[in-house]
């Protein structure tokens, strides 16, 4: 507290070290395919504290490790010379608590310990989200987050305890394929509860309400962790339950997950398009990407139900790969947004612009993240989407029933989602970083310091690496698929000695990210060199953009974020139910308005039509119940009297 510099160094140094260790141990496990089991001394006596690092845990630990390293370095710089600096010790405490609890969530080996660290994770995330609690928005978001998260935990509690009662044990190790042995209806209930509980944490629509509220209000380095890895805890839970505890579930489970994924992806990106708060936009994209992950999971479940283990492995790899990818590029994007926020003082895109000149490094890294999240080759987002498509494509042949139409339709929706995401990131990057600054703050923005740049460079490099090196990297998934499905598919997946990915033997469909990258470099370089050589000394001058003959191009002439997304707002008006308001002030004639005020707003349908009425109903009902305690002692005595007579009669009859 008193010495912020020291506090920051300790806090983020610890985060860095922890992240590094996590990375090392996870890589060890994934490389060796072994499982590390450890029982910690438990202080609460009744319950064991145990950790188990198996391949699935290690994958998530890997993502966490990368993020912890990058974000810790970034935070070091980010918290300097900011309002947070005076409270950096507290921030560091919760930051490290969050990292610790996340690590333990991914590795907890029994029900009690899992739920304990799960809630600690939520709690530390709550404290971090509410860190700047002076703002009403922040408090509201934090509260909503914790309440929804707790509700989800309730569902998990019941589900886990039903499982543990059936297993007669609290240990995850005893839950392996447990659900295959339970009656079908019980399995259904348990699975639904799990989907509900983990769905809240992952931000699956319609349980997502907290996500776009809570992620943006946290300090940006925390937002990076929240969107990057905290929501992945939900995905981890789903993966653990669906591919470890559950055997081959009923077909409808896969269909449900797949459907949820499609809806989630599409709705997420559609809402993101309408945002011009940079961080909220990114938060909605998290929902979208969770959807893409779920498409992979859903397909894997369906394949499993249909008895196609190899395909299931492919789909599972697609989902998990995307999980990892999203963790990395989303945190990269949030870190970039943090730099923008720190440099220009606002997250509102309508006040930004032209930052590419003032903050070149941030712009480059943000562009990398934007390209990756849009699923464009040769970065990592493309790989996981490609794998997802391949899985969906192959799904068509797995069954003869009408169900198979789900796969290509899901594929088409995925394509739409990805294309809309690209549109959205053209907007996000273009409006924020390109052309002219729209405000004084943006015009005088400052580039982040060296730590922040390093913190962003790291995930950007990983994005590239996971893209180009996909053929080598898929091997990492072997122990996971072997544990979950009993097959190893990396040999079929990796072609051309790791230079390319194949969709599996017998099915064509190959892609070589490294080849694509090389080709793009060559094809860009060739004309560039040719032009440079052939046109040496040719005139090239800098002039003003076409301003329609008006005196000079100013920031007011620029397209705004709102304008950019207008076509889509009109096209999807059914979903958005936009409301707009135009006020014009006239001075001389009605043809020459002096000033025009334009306001456009879309309806937050889930808030207005689902949660709003729900909240109102509950509160109204509570208000009516309040009449019970109206102050009349006679009424109070009457309650007891009635209870007495009823119970006496019951006791006499029974």
């Amino acid at each position: 507290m008193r010495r912020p510099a020291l506090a920051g160094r300790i806090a983020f140094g610890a985060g860095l070290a922890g992240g590094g260790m996590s990375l090392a141990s996870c890589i060890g496990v994934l490389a060796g395919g072994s499982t590390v089991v450890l029982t910690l001394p438990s202080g609460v006596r009744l319950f064991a504290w145990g950790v188990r690092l198996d391949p699935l845990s290690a994958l998530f630990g890997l993502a966490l490790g990368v993020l912890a390293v990058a974000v810790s370095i970034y935070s070091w710089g980010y918290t300097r010379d900011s309002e947070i600096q005076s409270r950096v010790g507290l921030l560091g405490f919760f930051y490290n608590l969050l990292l610790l609890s996340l690590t333990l969530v991914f590795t907890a080996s029994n029900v009690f310990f899992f739920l304990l660290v799960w809630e600690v994770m939520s709690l530390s995330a709550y404290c971090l989200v509410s860190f700047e609690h002076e703002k009403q928005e922040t408090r509201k978001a934090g509260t909503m987050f914790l309440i929804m998260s707790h509700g989800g935990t309730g569902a998990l509690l019941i589900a886990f305890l039903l499982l543990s009662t059936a297993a007669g044990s609290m240990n995850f190790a005893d839950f392996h394929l447990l659900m295959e042995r339970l009656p079908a209806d019980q399995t259904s209930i348990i699975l639904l509860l799990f989907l509900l509980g983990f769905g809240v944490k992952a931000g699956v629509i319609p349980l997502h309400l907290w996500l776009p509220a809570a992620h943006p209000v946290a300090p940006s380095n925390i937002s990076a962790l929240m969107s990057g890895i905290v929501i992945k805890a939900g995905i981890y839970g789903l993966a653990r339950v669906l591919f470890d505890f559950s055997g081959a579930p009923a077909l409808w489970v896969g269909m449900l997950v797949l459907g949820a994924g499609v809806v989630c992806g599409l709705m997420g990106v559609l809402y993101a398009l309408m945002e011009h708060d940079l961080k909220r936009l990114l938060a909605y994209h998290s929902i979208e990407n969770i959807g893409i992950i779920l498409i992979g999971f859903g397909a894997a479940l369906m394949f499993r139900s249909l008895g196609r283990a190899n395909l299931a492995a492919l789909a599972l790899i697609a989902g998990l790969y995307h999980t990892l990818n999203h963790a990395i590029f989303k945190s990269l994007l949030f870190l970039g947004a943090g730099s923008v926020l720190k440099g220009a003082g606002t997250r509102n895109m309508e006040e930004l612009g032209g930052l590419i000149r003032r903050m070149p490094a941030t712009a480059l890294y943000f562009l990398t993240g934007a390209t990756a999240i849009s699923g464009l080759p040769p970065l990592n987002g493309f790989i996981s989407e490609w794998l997802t498509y391949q899985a969906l494509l192959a799904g068509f042949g797995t069954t003869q029933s009408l169900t198979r139409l789900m796969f290509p339709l899901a594929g088409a929706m995925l394509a739409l989602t990805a294309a809309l995401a690209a549109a959205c990131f053209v907007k996000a990057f273009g409006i924020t970083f390109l052309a002219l600054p729209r405000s004084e703050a943006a015009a005088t923005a400052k580039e982040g310091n060296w730590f922040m740049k390093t913190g962003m460079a790291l995930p950007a490099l990983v994005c590239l690496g996971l893209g180009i090196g996909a053929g080598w990297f898929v091997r990492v998934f072997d122990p996971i698929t072997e544990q979950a499905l009993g097959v190893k598919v990396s040999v079929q997946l990796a072609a051309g000695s790791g230079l390319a990915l194949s969709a599996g033997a017998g099915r064509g469909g190959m892609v070589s990210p490294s080849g694509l990258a090389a080709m793009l470099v060559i094809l860009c370089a060739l004309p560039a060199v040719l032009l440079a050589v052939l046109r040496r000394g040719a005139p090239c001058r800098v002039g003003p953009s076409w301003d329609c003959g008006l005196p000079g191009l100013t920031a007011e002439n620029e397209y705004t974020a709102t304008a950019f997304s207008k076509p889509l707002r009109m096209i999807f008006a059914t979903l958005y139910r936009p409301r707009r308001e135009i006020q014009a002030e006239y001075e001389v004639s009605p043809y020459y308005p002096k000033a025009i005020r334009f306001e456009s707003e879309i309806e937050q349908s889930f808030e207005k039509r689902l949660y709003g009425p729900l909240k109102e109903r509950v509160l109204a009902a509570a208000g009516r119940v309040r009449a019970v305690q109206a102050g009349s002692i006679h009424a109070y005595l009457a309650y007891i009297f009635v209870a007495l007579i009823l119970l006496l009669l019951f006791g006499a009859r029974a």
Partner: protein
Amino acid sequence: MILILLLLVPLAAGLASYAAGRRRAMEAIHLTGFAVVFVLAFLLSGRVLAGGPVTIYDSFLYADALSALVILLTAAVSLLCSVYAIGFLRVEEQDGALGVEDGGAGARTKLRLYYTLTPLFVFSMLLIGLANNLGVMWAAMEATTLASVFLVALYGKGTSLEAAWKYAIIGGVGLSMALFGTVLVYYSGRALGGSDTLAGLNWSYLAIHASRLDPKTMRLAFILALLGYGTKAGLAPMHTWKPDAYGEAPVPAAAILSTATLNCALYALVRFYILTSRSVGPELPGGLLILLGMLSMGISVPFVLIQKNYRRLLAYHTIDHAGIMATAAGIGGKLGALALMLHMTFHTVAKALLFLCAGNVSQHFRTDLFRRIGGGVIRVMPLTGTVFLMAILAIIGMPPFSLFQSEFLIVQAGISSGHYLASVLFVVFGTGVFAGALLHVGGLVLGPRTGAPAADWRPWQGAPVLLLAVTLVVIGLWLPGPLFELIRAAARVVAGE
């Protein structure tokens, strides 16, 4: 000897305070008395843990692990509240909150009343724990009401009188039912030898011969005792006096009421539960306990959600937790009993802490309404604000705090014994209360600063808060071995091993 001293010390402290009448002297007596009581309770726990039940005077007083735990908790809370009360009442007197008429004479009378009645109140609670005879236990329970009525009415305002009246009348009716139940237990034991003597109502005697008690009578007896002691514990629909009494009593008294008194009432219920389940089987008493428990949890949800007054919020919270503990008792079995005892311990720590925090806030802002304060307590009173938020998170079942463990255990017990509906409702109601409490207390504690920072560190009020806060954190992560053993032993008593 410990048993006698345990009863004599608070009794003497009360009388001595009355006799002394001067503030300094009363404070000293108060503090010393409770310190001694705590030490004695500590020793008693040690004795019970080491050598099993302790009895005296032909088993007139009897302390097994269950009693020892309840007494230990009572003594601990009383000690901390007595420390707090010294600071609290001094400020109240200075601020004129106790009345300024007659040059402060009214305030001094009230101080004297407080320092006299509180030890008597605690005395009667200790007697509940120590009495072997169910009738004596009943009388002691009645005495707690009588001793605390004037504590509730201490401020002498219209609302305090209203609260005191409701407390006294509802409590009186409730305890009449409990007495009826006690009479019926005595009646059901008529077939046993020695029923004419004092021993016929001794718990230690009845527990041994419980299987021979007349089941028909025991069933009615349990229903009446459940309603009676349930009133005292604040189970719905007999809970209505609670928010009024807790909201109006001076904070330290309210803290004792909502922790120690609740424990004592539950203790009495559990004693009846044990006898009844041995006589007629655990289904009926267990089912009724779960029914009332669920009702209590359910009724507290709407009131927590739309609460305007934070002290009443805490009261509804106590109703919720009374329901939780009743449910745990009703689920029963080894797990349920253990969960009950753990929860009782943890709840005592957290709830006492909450009341003390609420007292600090209430004393600084001079209002109990959320709306008037508006928020930002953490900026005005950093320690109180932080601890308040922490404690509310703890009590709504957030780990790493301890109540998470006991609630987890309750649901586990519920599901493994097939009480699916109860378990699901438990979770649903828990979430509702969670939402309301977080919403309101979060709004109260967080936010921009609304006024000048409060007077700096007040040792008398700060120390107990800090101590309880540390305890709360520590027992969430590390439960001391002997305490855990005591809890386990108490749970064994409840589970009837």
